[in-house]
């Protein structure tokens, strides 16, 4: 592999020419084409694009939920796929948050957060201690014993984030995690996510169709254009952290948003 001596020089996540085709009876769909991207440790990268541009597919390929037709996903210098199977040790470095919280209604908040630890055989006392810590981190202290049905949409998504963080993943993959939330909750969740990403020092890949959200959260924004999904441009966001709500009204912020919006509009 391309492991160098200096660990800081190894990108956390590398996409080496990812291509993805879906074949069905009615023909094949070219979803992704030659995606090349290198993401550094602790970097926050958003992927934006209109619906159907393949951004969710890209995230599912990175997460190992679906295999690429061509190319390679490399995490910390190791390839994700070993033949036709996902190398579970490599996939174990991911935490995935989906558009829906996908909580298990039969488990309490605490047990939902601790699920990944349960699967890894961590003993009950240790996983509950860790889950309680995370519940606190995502602002759910006091709700540990509640069941998912007793929570609001925003709170459920926080549980999902805490669950993804429970085994300290190196990389957090998020697929429009706040897409189903109202604007106000969404803004609050963005602030919290920024804080969580900084506290946990995780590398984040964040899929969204909301340009403002992407610029607010990211160090770099990847613009994916559709059919087939390919990288149109990668835009750096050089705004100091932590960013607060006011950051959005700064000229630099608005300039980047406008630029990205024009690029998206040009696709027609």
């Amino acid at each position, binding site marked *: 592999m391309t492991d160098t001596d200096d660990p800081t020089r190894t990108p956390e996540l590398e996409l080496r020419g990812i291509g993805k085709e879906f074949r069905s009876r009615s023909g094949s769909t070219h979803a992704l084409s030659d995606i090349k991207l290198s993401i550094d440790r602790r970097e926050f990268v958003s992927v934006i694009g209109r619906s159907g541009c393949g951004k969710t597919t890209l995230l599912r390929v990175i*997460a*190992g*939920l679906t295999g690429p037709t061509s190319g390679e996903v490399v995490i910390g210098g190791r390839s994700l796929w070993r033949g036709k199977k*996902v190398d*579970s040790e490599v*996939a*174990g470095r*991911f935490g*995935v948050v*989906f558009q*829906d919280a*996908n909580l*298990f*209604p*039969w*488990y309490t908040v605490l047990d939902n957060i601790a*699920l*990944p630890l*349960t*699967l890894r055989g961590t003993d009950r006392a240790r996983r509950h201690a860790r889950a309680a810590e995370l519940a606190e981190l995502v602002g759910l202290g006091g709700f540990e014993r509640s*069941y998912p*049905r007793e929570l609001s949409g925003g709170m459920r998504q926080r549980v999902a984030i805490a*669950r993804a963080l429970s085994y300290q993943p190196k990389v957090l993959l998020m697929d429009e995690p706040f897409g189903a939330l109202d604007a106000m909750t969404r803004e609050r969740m963005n602030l919290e996510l920024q804080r969580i990403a900084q506290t946990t020092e995780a590398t984040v890949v964040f899929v969204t169709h909301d340009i403002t959200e992407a610029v607010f959260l990211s160090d770099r924004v990847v613009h994916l254009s559709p059919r087939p999904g390919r990288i149109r441009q990668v835009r750096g966001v050089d705004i100091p952290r932590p960013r607060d709500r006011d950051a959005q009204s700064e000229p630099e912020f608005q300039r980047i948003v406008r630029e990205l919006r024009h690029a998206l509009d040009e696709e027609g």
Partner: protein
Amino acid sequence: MGQDRFVKLLPWFSTPVVIVLLVVAWELFIRAFGVSEFVLPSPGTVLVSLVALVQDPETWHHAAITATEAITGFLAAVVLGVATGVALGKSALLERALRPMIIAAQVVPKVALIPLFVIWFGFGLTSKIIMAAMLAFFPIMLNVLLGVRSVDPGQRDVMRSLTASRWNTFRHLEFKSTLPYVFTGMEVGIVFAIIGTIVGEYLGGSEGLGYLVVVSLNQLDGPQLFAVIVLLASLGLLLYFAINGLKRLVIPWHESVYSQNGVT
């Protein structure tokens, strides 16, 4: 909160009231139209008959027989229904191959088969147990099949993203997610099992509450006929609530349980 409490407790008050109203209407109907004792006995005579039945150890023997038949048949249906439901739910190919047969088997009025069972297995308990099992099998199997198919794809993605083993996926997701369907099937199944048992007893044999119904009819004993029906209804309720109670215990997190409790 006060409103919730009221709604939650309402059935405990409304049910006795409705029962009393029905009994009063029954009594009034008899007095108004002078219905004969055999066609529709008065509530009072039924009660007398019921008390006499309950004090007779012979009645308890019959009730025990009916309960044994229904419960044994039901348990057999649970085991076979869950196993078949899981197998068909897991294998689309198998389900497709067997679907015409399953639909045909469902459509056949199974009660019509009882005489056959009597020929094959005699007038004893076996033919009724088989009848009970056969009626209870389909709702259980079909619900389990549906449950296995209904595991949420999003929740599956979670397990896959965590590279969960097959066993863990079964234990933490598929099993828990299918349980509510199993209980729905069992709630319907237990009722069907009792129906199968009683019809079986009507048609053949010398034991059970169903047999007691036939005896009462032959003796033209209207009040006793009604009293046995009350006993049968009680047995049905008892078994249904046993299943329902088990459900509340095992899946307290499920919508059908917590909404039933009035805590929405």
